[in-house]
């Protein structure tokens, strides 16, 4: 019983991070119809920037802020320099570009920061709280993780719902031509969208790293889990991504706890294949819709 509870709690914390990462993928997919697989190495690079600062003697929070800021800048630069030139070309060009970026960032990080596993500090305790004499799997850092993701999501909702910029971004994502006719600077909105997505991705990266080990490939599996979570939610829906992330986090935590951590990625693949076979539009899909 206790193991069941602990597995579920650990899964919820991880699920929050997957949800954030899925959200980053969904934000970009909604506006540009690209799944940005390079989100993983982008988050890895920003985490390494934070680690370099922390190792140089700055506080965790300066590293944290630097990572988010670096993510914001990196996202904007990638959109302007790589994605914009192929905007009116077939999607496959942009996808290949993101994959090229994937390899480049991976290799660059290995050359600059080295290939070894390095430990990343956590600002809060990474030992479970004690409840009634027994330790549960909820840690101080876990609480911080959940809190940070919830705050960022709330800010995003506020941005999209209640501000002028958010309305313009939604318009640009929904229908570029009409938005352009109505005076929305679509290009700027796309850049902003990529920047925000990369920021959320960086947040996920630094939260996964906390109290654990980082190396150039440590986010590769997370992008898979983020993608599966996004597909669970239908790839288009931010709320779906969050629900998908939590569901996936708990499911994978059970696989890891009861079967073996080596098979977690395989389980994610199995879940993905199951969803694509049964409900390709995601768990909450209603009517079949397609773009022609």
């Amino acid at each position, binding site marked *: 019983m206790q193991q069941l509870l602990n597995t579920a709690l650990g899964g919820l914390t991880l699920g929050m991070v997957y949800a954030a990462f899925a959200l980053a993928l969904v934000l970009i*997919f909604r506006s540009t*119809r*690209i*799944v940005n*697989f390079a989100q993983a190495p982008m988050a890895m690079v920003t985490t390494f920037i934070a680690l370099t600062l922390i190792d140089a003697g700055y506080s965790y929070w300066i590293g944290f802020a630097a990572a988010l800021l670096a993510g914001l800048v990196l996202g904007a630069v990638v959109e302007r320099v*790589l994605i914009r*030139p*192929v905007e*009116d*070309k*077939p*999607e*496959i*060009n942009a*996808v*290949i*570009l993101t*994959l*090229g*970026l*994937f*390899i*480049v*960032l*991976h*290799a*660059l990080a*290995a*050359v600059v920061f*080295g*290939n070894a596993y390095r430990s990343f500090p956590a600002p809060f305790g990474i030992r479970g709280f004690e409840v009634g004499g027994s330790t549960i799997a909820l840690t101080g850092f876990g609480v911080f993780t959940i809190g940070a993701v919830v705050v960022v999501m709330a800010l995003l909702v506020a941005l999209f719902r209640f501000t002028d910029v958010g309305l313009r971004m939604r318009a640009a994502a929904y229908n570029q031509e009409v938005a352009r006719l109505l005076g929305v600077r679509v290009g700027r909105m796309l850049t902003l969208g990529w920047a925000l997505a990369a920021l959320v991705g960086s947040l996920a990266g630094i939260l996964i790293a906390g109290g654990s080990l980082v190396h150039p*490939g440590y986010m*590769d*599996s997370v*992008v*898979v889990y983020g*993608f*599966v979570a996004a*597909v669970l939610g239908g*790839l288009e829906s931010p709320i779906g991504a969050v629900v998908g992330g939590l569901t996936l986090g708990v499911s994978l935590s059970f696989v890891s706890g009861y079967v*073996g951590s*080596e*098979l*977690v*990625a*395989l389980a*994610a*693949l199995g879940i*993905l*294949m*199951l969803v*694509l*076979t049964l409900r*390709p539009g995601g768990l909450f899909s209603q009517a079949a819709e*397609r*773009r*022609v």
Partner: protein
Amino acid sequence: MPAKLQRLWRDSVLGRHVLVALVGLLVVLLLLETVNDFRAIQLSSMAYLGIAAGGLTILTGLNGQISLGHGALMAIGAYTAALMLPDRDASTPLPLVVLVSVLVTLAVGTAVGAAAARLHGPYLAGATLALAVAVPGIALYFGETLGGEQGLRVSMPDVPVWALDAEYLLTGTEMTRSGWVALMAWTTLAVTYVLLANLSRGRVGRRWRAVRDGEVSAELAGIRLGRSRVSAFMVSAAAAGAAGAMLAFTVRLAAPSGFTLTLSLTLLTAVVLGGLGSLGGALVGAALLTFLPPFVTSVGSDAGLSDLRAAELAPLVYGLVMIAVILLAPAGIAGSFRAWRIRRQARVAVAPAPVAASATGTTGTPDSPTRSTVPTSSKGTPT
């Protein structure tokens, strides 16, 4: 007689492909005579990378889908071959080993493809990425049968007597084991490429292209979109299985570290660089993947990088090349060359110019010059 040969060359697609393959094999055979063991092993690596890249270029170039898991599919082929050639007992005939490897990989590819490839969108890319991340875990979890981190050793049978005799009769030299493996790998490559080239020239290939260029019109023409996409992925997966078996023969080891995500992504580099959809381009890309790393790594070591870091320079170059090709010459090497040739022909014939323009403008799918005279709608853009 030359006129008859010329007609045969023009009319018989199969004859042309087989002829090119035979001449290519002969060249490789002659080349193998002159090189040492190390180069022979490199040539085998080029062959298995070429087989996998060939399968991938058919999928991406002709059908417009992306697989990020061809390295993982190669792993499945390699592990199957390794399981069939355990230590001390190498009596299973190699063609059977290759066949079973292809079939097992095909089965996995069909399972993943049936779920993900039938849908339009990023699903196949995501599912194959998941496969690439998941496969090393399987080898670790079933460590007792699959050898865990150390992997499985492959024991190769000796070079058969008839091959030794034939080699001695023809050239007067002894055939080494590496030479024999390289010959097998290149023969497999030739067979695979002839099959793939014929498929892409025939009805199946036309359907794949139709699905890539316009889903609605393809569907109106009676093509089942999902079935066509899944079949393209299956063919491509089977090629990866053969490549995996050849890798097992060459490296004589199947270990998780040999099938990283980087392998899958660099295969994509080979395909992009050569030009999507061009088998010759895939072979050029495979040559680059084989011969560039030692060169770049030594440059890095000379520049004062540690060995581990210098080894990362090759993927760095691949990634940069991939980005540059898509931004500057989306048709790749083969496609750019073809576009240049078409442009020259057009100038000679004073034909309208747009022929060449659209050949370079799209994704880089230089399959047939005739296609580019028809206005094609690219995937995703409204028709």
